């Protein structure tokens, strides 16, 4: 059920877009209204989610560290694994976000002849890295549809991605890598029993959806080619807020676009928000300076304190009269 429902949902979404264009000719709906609506939901939803996270108090530093803390000058401290400065945190976060450093430490626990052994498990890290980097490069490549005068950097990215010079239009290596990586990430969930047990529909749906987006893009580029200049007039039209539906752009483009719209609209409500969440992980992004600095707990309210000095001031006469010792005469 956890696999079948999201799978058929994606199939159903493809059919909706296909029927909407081929049978109902709803080009304006699928080409303009839905993309705008999805984009609005994405941006507003993203900002609201992050704002809600930002309201959480940070009473104490809770980084999970794996290196020597800064202490005495003659003990060598690990500046990145146990950061004591903003610079250390920036390096640590950069390694985490760009190279998934904590996932690199992923271990596999197994029983070997009545003994527990921990083995290195890097495949998830590798596939995750391949998937995310391909996705990023693909998103960057798509900026050629949104920029009028295309900058040199973009051309360079495209050139590198297509450097194998296979076929025409040139084959992009990231297209192959992303399809392979998503397939691996899916098979991994199905093949490992423990993982399958904890996987929910919300884990499979993004995988199927992203696979659908990548596949429709691949089909559009290499097999059912569309009128690309027409596509760019539509995308540039979105930016100028006066979009016009181009003529004769194949249905595969609208399927691709509809799946992306669904992904954008689904984004703020799903696990995909980890793109914002990774920046806000308190176990990674805090400086380990609990002993160096005072961290005031924001939910502490002012407590009325009655000190001994005040007490003695108030009852000094009475205390003296019964012979109790006082500090001040």
């Amino acid at each position, binding site marked *: 059920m956890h696999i079948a429902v999201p799978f058929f949902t994606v199939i159903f979404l493809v059919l909706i877009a296909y029927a909407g264009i081929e049978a109902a000719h709803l080009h304006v709906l699928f080409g303009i209204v839905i993309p705008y609506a999805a984009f609005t939901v994405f*941006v507003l939803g*993203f*900002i609201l989610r*992050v*704002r809600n*996270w*930002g*309201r*959480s*108090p*940070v*009473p104490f530093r809770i980084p999970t560290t794996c290196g020597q803390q800064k202490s005495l000058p003659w003990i060598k401290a690990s500046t990145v694994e146990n950061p004591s400065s903003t610079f250390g945190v920036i390096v640590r976060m950069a390694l985490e976000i760009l190279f998934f450093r904590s996932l690199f430490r992923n271990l596999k626990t197994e029983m070997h002849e009545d003994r527990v052994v921990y083995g290195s498990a890097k495949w998830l890290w590798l596939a995750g890295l391949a998937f995310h980097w391909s996705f990023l490069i693909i998103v960057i490549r798509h*900026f*050629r549809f*949104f*920029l*009028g*005068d*295309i900058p040199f950097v*973009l*051309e360079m990215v*495209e*050139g590198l991605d297509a450097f194998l*010079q296979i*076929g*025409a*239009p040139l084959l992009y290596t990231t297209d192959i890598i992303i399809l392979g990586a998503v397939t691996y990430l899916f098979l991994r969930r199905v093949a490992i029993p423990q993982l399958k047990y904890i996987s929910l529909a919300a884990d499979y749906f993004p995988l199927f959806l992203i696979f659908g987006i990548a596949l429709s893009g691949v089909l559009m580029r290499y097999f059912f*080619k*569309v*009128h*690309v*200049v027409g596509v*760019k*007039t539509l995308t*540039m039209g979105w*930016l100028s807020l006066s979009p016009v539906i181009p003529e*004769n752009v*194949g249905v595969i483009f609208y399927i691709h676009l509809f799946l992306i719209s669904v992904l954008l609209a689904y984004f703020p409500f799903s696990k995909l928000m980890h793109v*914002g969440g990774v*920046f*806000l992980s308190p176990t990674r992004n805090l400086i380990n300076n609990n002993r160096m600095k005072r*961290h*005031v*707990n*924001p939910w502490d309210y002012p407590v009325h304190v009655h000190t001994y000095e005040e007490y003695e001031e108030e009852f000094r006469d009475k205390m003296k009269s019964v012979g109790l010792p006082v500090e001040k005469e």
Partner: protein
Amino acid sequence: MYDGNKIIIGLVVFGLLIISPILYNTLGKASVPPEPDINTPEINKMVEKKCVEPKSFMRANHMQILNDWRDEVVRVGKTRTYVNGEGKEFNMSLQNTCMKCHSNKKNFCDKCHTYMAVKPYCWDCHIAPKEKTT
């Protein structure tokens, strides 16, 4: 302690990234959808202005045809004749068939290719036609 300020900075960066294409386009040159020019002597001579295949097909698939022709002529080497949907025969040659009519690379090929940032490597081997820059 709250870290709200840092998060607001992060959200501002997110917002800037989102609107960066709009900013870039406002600052840069205005983009005009390209209109490839077919006003060449060879094409003007034609009674019926027709390419190898219909226009809508050529628009989306011309790179496929060029690639197939290249493979057929340079790598397979069995035939140099292309038969189109109507049964008409053409010599598989970029310079002697395509460029004979479309002799205006700058105003035909380059128009869309520049617009879409496509850099075909035709001219790595073929000699690009010399044209007056107009």
